[in-house]
């Protein structure tokens, strides 16, 4: 297995506050990785840096060991194959669920391509399949804004899958989901891991356990511990700063 993504000595501070402090992290291709950590540990900022939303003050971020991600912007990273799902589900509220998916499909993103784009049967099939996967076929024609919180989560996951990215960055997908949904999400993520690389940021321990994967604990912007969930939860410091006694 080769390295998908590697952060090395990355630092980023806002007005003196070090959100990311000498963070080093390596993700293998096809790996499923959970990142946990207390609020302000730098989870979101880490994702911002990977996706090019935020530039690190120092350190390097490599994609496939070759591409320097600190140079690309959001769109650039997305085109490389990095998909991201936000903490707070963000979908295009005034457009139909179907359109939301359609816009996310892995297709040329240039002006002309989109201007003269004609929808094809294959495309519709793909959309139907995805909607089915995220159980939104029933509401395919609704305005996304009319969906419930949980449904929006699903829709966003659907959009993420539609991009068919190499790496999925998933920020607290379980938030606002019923336990059943949470479990289904976990299954889904596990199932797509392997052909995709998946990084999940989550608070919900049951969810993380359900993912049953390698866990990285962030604290004050750097890696505190890494390993299986049992391993890290046995770690003194981790218990100290995060799990609590």
């Amino acid at each position: 297995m080769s390295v998908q993504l590697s952060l090395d000595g990355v630092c980023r501070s806002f007005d003196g506050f070090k959100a990311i402090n000498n963070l080093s992290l390596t993700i293998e291709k096809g790996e499923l990785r959970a990142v946990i950590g207390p609020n302000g540990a730098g989870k979101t900022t880490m994702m911002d840096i990977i996706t090019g939303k935020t530039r690190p003050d120092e350190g390097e971020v490599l994609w496939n060991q070759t591409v320097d991600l600190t140079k690309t912007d959001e769109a650039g990273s997305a085109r490389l194959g990095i998909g991201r799902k936000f903490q707070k589900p963000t979908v295009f509220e005034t457009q139909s669920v179907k359109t939301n998916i359609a816009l996310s499909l892995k297709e040329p993103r240039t002006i002309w391509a989109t201007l003269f784009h004609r929808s094809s049967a294959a495309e519709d099939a793909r959309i139907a399949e995805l909607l089915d996967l995220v159980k939104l076929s029933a509401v395919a024609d609704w305005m996304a804004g009319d969906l419930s919180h949980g449904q929006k989560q699903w829709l966003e996951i659907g959009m993420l899958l539609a991009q068919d990215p190499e790496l999925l960055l998933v920020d607290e997908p379980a938030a606002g989901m019923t336990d059943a949904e949470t479990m289904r999400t976990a299954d889904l993520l596990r199932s797509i891991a392997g052909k995709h690389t998946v990084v999940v940021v989550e608070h919900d321990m049951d969810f993380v356990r359900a993912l049953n994967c390698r866990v990285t604990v962030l604290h004050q912007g750097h890696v505190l511990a890494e390993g299986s969930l049992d391993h890290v939860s046995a770690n003194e410091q981790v218990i100290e700063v995060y799990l609590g006694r």
Partner: protein
Amino acid sequence: MTHLRSYLFTVLTCVAGLLATMATAQDFDALVASLPDGNFDDRAAVVGQIAASGDDRAVGLLEALSDGELQVLKSDGRLVIVTDVKGVDIAADALTGAEAGVVPRRGASAIRVNNSLRRTIGAAIGILTLSSPDPARRLTAAEAAFRAPDPDQLDLLQTAILDETDPRVSAALKSAIAATTLAGDSTVADKLAAIAILKTQANQAALGILTPLVAAPDAQIAAAAADAVDQIERTQKLWSGAQNVLFGISLGSVLLLAAIGLAITFGVMGVINMAHGELVMIGAYTTFAVQEVIRNSFPFLFDWSLLIAAPLAFLMAGAVGVAIERGCVRFLYGRPLETLLATWGVSLILQQTVRSIFGPNNREVGNPSWMSGAFDIGHLTITYNRLWIFVFALAVFAILLFVMKKTPIGLQMRAVTQNRAMAASMGIRTGWVDAMTFGLGAGIAGLAGVALSQIDNVSPNLGQSYIVDSFMVVVFGGAGNIWGTLAGAFSIGIANKFLEPYSGAVLAKIIVLVCIILFIQKRPRGLFAVKGRAVDG
């Protein structure tokens, strides 16, 4: 003193070119009676004789003449001095001072004076008041002598300076003597000395006197003058930079005043308040109204008019602001762009309202005495109104800062504008706070109006001429940060004034605008952007 007075006479007689040595009261009356006849030159001669007559009424008469108060009654052709008492023209006989009753509109015609005659009169009065007990009058006399140097007065001035006690007056006399010396045919040595004196004075007036001397026949004088001129010009160049900063600051404070209210309504509340300019206008018209009342009823209060107007303007504009907020803006929170439309409508209505109440014309708002005129620091001329506007702007800013940062209402304002829902759930009456915030912004715009009424038109268009600039300042400074507005206003002002001498007023403004556009590219959130982890998803 008596010695001087008799001296005066002899000198004056030659000034006026009178043959007779002693003038009598009869002659005086005759002279005055002859004032209306003839053209300006005849009149000038008469003025000279009146001055020479040594009659005690001379000064009063001449002053009345130069102020256009000396008039001829159309009814009986009597010569009277007309004074305006509470808008009513009261006439008094020019010679006897006896009451001549009220003058009907266009009932009397003033004896005409033009600038040159006015200069002559000034000089004549100068001579007569050179020995006045009042130092202020002596000072004006000396300055008059400086402005219109007359060689014949040289001895007179030199005598005057001997028993002059007041330092300022004697300084003025000194330069007056210098100027007079240069004007006449004194010895080269004297002239060189005079040039030296003016050289130290180093102001434009001196320059005006010295420049022609550069072409003087006498090589020595020419050289000295050239040197002096050269040095004065160098000093003035040196100071011009400072002058620009000064101009910039004063322009900046105007911009600051115009924008600061907007920094609240737009910057803090996010309402694109197109009626802002009209709120400023309301402030200005309040000032006008106050002054009208004062003029008609309590003239003695005039110097206080602005201080009286300020709070009223604040309340007036504030009230209108609250009305606007309650009336429409409050339905539009979260739809900032709609506020643009509504407030635009409001601004149209306010403009037309003012137009129909006060008429479309400019209204006169007078400068109180303490805001008129100028003073010099080094070679900088600072006009009082600019100075006070600067002070006023900073004061307003300070007050605003205090309200926002140190008072409970300010705290609530910030709370509501940052997180309405949270604030509401913490029991803050958001509606009330919104109204107050908008009212505050509007009221401050009103205050700005009071100041702007001192330097600009008070007309229904007043607001329109400031609205664009105000938005520029707020955005450039960074919306939501009143410090930004301060910095923005002054940097724009100063930049403008430094460009103006080279590029001219229009181009300077264009360049500044382009710079703002480019600057926003660098800092899309303005000068004092709210930094930190971007929190949009």
